[in-house]
């Protein structure tokens, strides 16, 4: 434990630096001292005279964005670790359980049926859609066979994803105009621009809660890596633990998807990369993945805002642009291994 201390300090420092970078860099050019003055005014009432629009941009737009990006990145990466361990499948990631497809359907339904005026936002629709898809996948997996067969869950997830993706496509072709489809696409590819402080208070606790639950079960996760049977032989309540951890992953993902849309690849790439670097032990892999996911998504968001001046690229596009080549590298480097 003593050895972990400097690492933890280093990790926190890295996270702080990333959040600061995310706050300092944005669509418009604000001088670093303005950013500092705004933060100082809010954190220790420094009382610098700052333009109120600049102050609002730094404190309410950029800082919240960086914090939510960190929480989402950490949450999605944690979910990736859980699912890859439980399902013993290197391709498992949060969206495998049909969550993102369900979220899309929910959001599109809200958008197209004009439920928007009835207090249900697209993000509310996304949350309900994600949970509905997850329940469907669970029921399907259960009906398909005994729970210790992880292939059932993956196959059920694929079936659920396909079904909801098809539903979304049907809805869009049936009733959306070109302009509508564009609005939906904008949302589906992931977007952090609508984030304000209330989103921070949703995303941060959920990410921390997910991480805590997983750390609590880190030994069980280690055992599951060798299969449900060996986990059972170690005295772990297989069914209960599986259900708890998968539900936890579903909840975290659904909350994140409902705040920022479907941001892919974080949950897939980060755990793999860190497993290669740190080995399979979950007591290290879990916090490292959470940190890696946080840093990755903050960086991706900064890139999405600055890559093309005056225009924001959907953050999901950036994560996939970086994620896909990294994933390919991992595949190649694993060549020859079982």
């Amino acid at each position, binding site marked *: 434990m003593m050895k972990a201390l400097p690492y933890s300090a280093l990790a926190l420092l890295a996270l702080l630096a990333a959040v600061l970078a995310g706050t300092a860099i944005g669509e418009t050019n604000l001088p670093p001292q303005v950013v500092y003055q705004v933060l100082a005014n809010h954190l220790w009432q420094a009382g610098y005279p700052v333009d109120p*629009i600049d102050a609002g941009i730094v404190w309410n737009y950029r800082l919240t964005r960086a914090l939510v990006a960190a929480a989402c990145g950490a949450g999605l990466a944690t979910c990736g670790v859980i699912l890859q361990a439980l399902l013993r499948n290197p391709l498992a990631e949060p969206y495998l359980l049909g969550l993102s497809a369900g979220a899309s359907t929910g959001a599109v339904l809200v958008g197209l049926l004009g439920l928007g005026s009835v207090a249900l936002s697209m*993000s509310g629709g996304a949350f309900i859609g994600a949970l509905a898809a997850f329940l469907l996948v669970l029921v399907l997996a259960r009906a398909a066979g005994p729970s210790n067969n992880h292939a059932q869950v993956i196959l059920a997830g694929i079936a659920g994803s396909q079904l909801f993706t098809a539903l979304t496509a049907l809805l869009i072709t049936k009733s959306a105009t070109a302009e509508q489809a564009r609005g*939906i696409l904008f949302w589906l590819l992931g977007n952090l621009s609508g984030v304000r402080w209330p989103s921070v208070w949703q995303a941060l606790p959920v990410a921390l809660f997910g991480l805590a639950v997983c750390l609590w079960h880190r030994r069980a996760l280690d055992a599951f890596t060798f299969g449900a049977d060996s986990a059972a032989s170690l005295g772990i309540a297989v069914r209960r633990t599986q259900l708890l951890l998968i539900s936890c992953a579903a909840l975290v993902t659904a909350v994140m998807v409902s705040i920022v849309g479907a941001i892919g690849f974080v949950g897939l790439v980060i755990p793999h990369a860190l497993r290669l670097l740190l080995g399979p032990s979950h007591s290290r892999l879990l916090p490292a993945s959470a940190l890696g996911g946080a840093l990755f998504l903050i960086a991706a968001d900064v890139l999405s805002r600055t890559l093309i001046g005056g225009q924001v690229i959907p953050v999901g596009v950036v994560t996939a642009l970086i994620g896909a080549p990294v994933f390919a590298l991992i595949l190649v480097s694993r060549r020859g291994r079982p």
Partner: protein
Amino acid sequence: MLPRIATLLAGLSLTGLAQAAATLYPLTVDNCGAPQTFAQAPERAVTIGQAGTEMLYALGLGDKLVGSSLWFNNVLPEFQALNAKVPRLADNEPSFEAVVGKRPQLVAVQFEWMVGAQGAVATREQFSELNIATYLLPSDCEGKDNLVGADGTRLQAFQVDSIYKSISQLAEIFDVQDRGTALNADLKGRLDSAKKQLAGKDLSNTSALFWFSSADLGIDPYVAGRQGVADFMLRTLGVRNVVESTEEWPTVGWETLAKANPTWLIIARMDRRRYPADDYRKKLEFLRHDPVTKQMDAVRNNRIIILDADAMQAGIRLFRGLQTLSAAFASGEAAP
């Protein structure tokens, strides 16, 4: 407006000034690169798009209309009675068969993405194979590439002449040229009066932002870019658009918009309720409560103009919109 035009017409025909020649058939009109030939004035027409529908009403051709479609808002109040007699084929795009089933001799189309090379309803060839003429409003094809970008991309700035042109061409096709001349005179008069209202006023430091809607409140909104109809309105009145993108309706982040800090905010009012931000009251609420936008000069000084979404499109409503804007710019305050 109709009664006004009627009196205008009466006055003009008395003096004989606007006594335009009767149309000679067969008439060939070059329209968006596809010449259309008319053996006689169409007796049955279908419209796709509200701008064309209201143009035909304003030309007194409501009795020739056998179907309308693609509505954004309620019809102008003065055309309500006329419109009640015309079957509405669809609120959005009609199917090809619904249009053809009305046996029209002319289909008037507002947007090329409805009828065009990648038309959602059909291509122009599909109609011409059935001997049905199509007329695309020139405002959506001249100087605009509709195969690039979601709402098309303007290669040149929108020209108001394209509206006058569509009115005189439609008037020629239907052999009501004097009505077309009178309608164009009325619209030009509105444009001139809007400009005149601001004569002598220094607007060199005045800027504005058009906010159409947002996919979700708080995320990057759809705003008017350069070269489109909304931008034309500002240019005509001598006010600068703070958005620099040349896309028709780009999405731009609130950080950029707040920093640009326009003198005026112009927000769209529409009956559509697809996104929460379609409701102009939701837009106002957002502007006044978001921690950053509430600090914008236009919000603090209540310089927010609520404008009909249709006034930002290439149709006859554009001219009333110009008058609304100039009245606000002239008084320095937004009308309640």
